[in-house]
């Protein structure tokens, strides 16, 4: 043998785990489509594992795989499967993953034959989605320009001019002055925030809740400030 070596090592990867009581194609299609519409970029080609723990049905894994592909998702395997489900999943080319501690009771043996190389020895399934990406803009955003960070935070090194618009599904950080519009949590996440070094905005919005310039022209005008959603209103606070 030459020095072309081969190695199989266990690694940990963040995967999104789908919990759904009804795994019929039509029902899942409409539920997933609605879910994805909230944050299309966020789940784009995301690796997904189906959790079958509380589900004794016999899903059509081949059709499910097809559906996930159409929705721009990657179905990599199942977890919490019973013996029958396990065989069916393996026949459809899916990995059978051993769940983490949370569901150790029902865990099954990982199957080396059918699992993709990266998942040969999965030891843990992380339920959290992947961390948010960020889009970085090095210059000023000028009047008339619009920037959208899809499924991501938006970081702007310069200023956002009057008549410019910056939009993010995540948080927005502006290291210069904000004189235009800033729209964070654009896909509906009200936990997102807007930070800027000099607040002179025409409009700020978080998950569709907005303030116009006149609501901002108080003590924080022209100062470093943070906008967030709290309870049922926007709140502005100083950056220290």
């Amino acid at each position, binding site marked *: 043998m030459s020095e072309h070596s081969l190695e199989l090592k266990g690694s940990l990867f963040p995967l999104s785990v789908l919990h759904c009581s009804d795994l019929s194609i039509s029902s899942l299609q409409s539920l997933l489509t609605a879910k994805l519409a909230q944050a299309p970029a966020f789940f784009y080609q995301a690796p997904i594992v189906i959790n079958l723990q509380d589900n004794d049905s016999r899903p059509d894994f081949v059709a499910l795989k097809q559906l996930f592909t159409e929705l721009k998702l990657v179905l990599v395997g199942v977890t919490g499967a019973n013996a029958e489900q396990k065989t069916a999943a393996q026949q459809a080319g899916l990995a059978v993953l051993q769940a983490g501690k949370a569901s150790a009771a029902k865990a099954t043996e990982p199957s080396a034959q059918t699992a993709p190389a990266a998942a040969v020895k999965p030891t843990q399934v992380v339920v959290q989605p992947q961390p948010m990406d960020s889009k970085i803009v090095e*210059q*000023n*955003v*000028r*009047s*008339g*320009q619009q920037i959208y960070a899809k499924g991501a935070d938006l970081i702007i090194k*310069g*200023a956002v*001019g*009057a*008549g*410019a618009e910056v939009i993010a599904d995540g948080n927005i950080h502006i290291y*210069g*002055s904000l*004189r235009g519009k800033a729209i964070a949590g654009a896909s509906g996440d009200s936990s997102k925030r807007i930070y800027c070094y000099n607040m002179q905005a025409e409009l700020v919005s978080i998950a569709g809740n907005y303030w116009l310039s006149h609501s901002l022209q108080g003590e924080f005008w022209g100062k470093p400030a943070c906008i967030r959603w709290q309870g049922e209103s926007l709140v502005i606070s100083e950056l220290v």
Partner: protein
Amino acid sequence: MAKIIVVTSGKGGVGKTTSSAAIGTGLALAGKKTVIVDFDIGLRNLDLIMGCERRVVYDFVNVINGEANLKQTLIKDKRVENLFILPASQTRDKDALTKEGVERVLNELSADFDFIICDSPAGIESGAMMALYFADEAVVVTNPEVSSVRDSDRILGMLSSKSRRAEQGLDGIKEHLLLTRYNPERVLKGEMLSVEDVKEILAIELVGVIPESQAVLNASNSGQPVILDEESDAGQAYLDTVKRLLGETVPFRFLTVERKGFIKRLFGG
């Protein structure tokens, strides 16, 4: 290879043509072979300010259409060596300029000149886009008032996204801020933005501040670029601007209200 400088603003009437004429003339005075190209098709102002309106035979559109060559069309200035004007057409509309045509003419000029100054029309439509598309540097002409600053910000956005340099991923256009019609008295009264205000908003390097001046009106009425009026405040401010464009460091003048001397006050000077 010439350096192509667009003189642009978004807003009309801020002093683009006045500045194109002054800067082009100043560069030629400094020994650089310079051509000023009028992109304001249909309005044709540059030749009036340069005082060569009676010598226009062919124009930019004729050259683009192959109806005349550059040699026949370029007007050589009678006062300053190394200075030429490529006039705009008065009878065509702005759509007469095509990207390919403009590129061909600029390439041909580029082989022969040190500087090509493009006097842009107002607005953000095709004429203005054509004037800035091929630029290496931009002089963004701004008056110290909110609407002009806003339009300049808009044009700066275009320069960084809609130019050839942006599209080809080259180094960006070098941007210079030229503040014109500056009136320190009105700034003091809070009726106009200050140099610092405008610099802070637009965040680009300042290349010159031209005071509001009767000398500009006198100059354009007599078909003389104001930079040739070396006694005048505006003429001197443009001379400083040209030096800065050529890389010199020159202190800024005419930024503060001039105290009128006793004699001047007596005679209302």
